[in-house]
């Protein structure tokens, strides 16, 4: 009898794990698939944090300054620890040559 309970428990756990795996692999990742993003939509995001729709990080390669913007507010890196990067791009600059890396989190 006890061995039956263990077997049922094992089977249930495996089913749970399978669903968890499928959710992580397909559900979460494909919702934020990279092909949904157009780099031109993000060219106006800059280090003044004037966009309150996104959580993003800008690494200015000229002076190595890192700016993290959290829905329009400049914050430190602890704010984004639980978010994952969904888009990354190396822009050449906006009005003049000033290369920077943009990383968008969700």
């Amino acid at each position: 009898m006890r061995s039956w309970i263990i077997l049922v428990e094992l089977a249930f756990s495996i089913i749970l794990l399978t669903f968890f795996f499928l959710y992580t692999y397909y559900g979460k990742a494909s919702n934020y698939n990279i092909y949904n993003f157009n780099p031109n939509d993000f060219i106006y995001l800059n280090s003044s944090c004037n966009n309150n729709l996104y959580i993003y990080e800008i690494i200015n390669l000229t002076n190595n300054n890192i700016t993290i913007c959290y829905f329009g507010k400049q914050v430190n890196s602890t704010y984004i620890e639980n978010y994952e990067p969904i888009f990354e791009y190396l822009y050449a600059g906006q009005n003049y040559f000033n290369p920077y890396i943009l990383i968008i989190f969700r």
Partner: protein
Amino acid sequence: MKSQYILLATIAIIIILSFITYYNLSPIKNINPNLIGKNFEDQIIYIYQNFGYNYISNYTSYFENYTNEINYNFSFICISSYNLSIPKCSGSNINCCYYFKGFFVVNQSILKYCNESFILYNPPNWVCFCYNVNNSNSYYINFFCI
């Protein structure tokens, strides 16, 4: 008593497995060779159109460092009528198409400016890049002219 141990062991194994699954999957495919290649191509075109060709060399060195940091191999050669100050692009007779010769799965439209001995001829303009992005899983190669 014995079966309780087995039960505990089963639960422990499942918890460990869950952690392994979670941490292995969390670096999602937010970046790939295709996107990196397009990033390079789009920005080189943008620089040429908005800032002038003398910034191209600067951008390519930033781009090479960036791709190294994210563990991708990135290489390119180019041919140009301007002096771009890039050692890989010096000379006006660079064998650009030869760059693709090792890759047998190349879209034929890329090779439309190559002759039978894989030498680039009569491209639309004289700023043309051949590039190759790869990591351990996949690769992306392409050719563009501005």
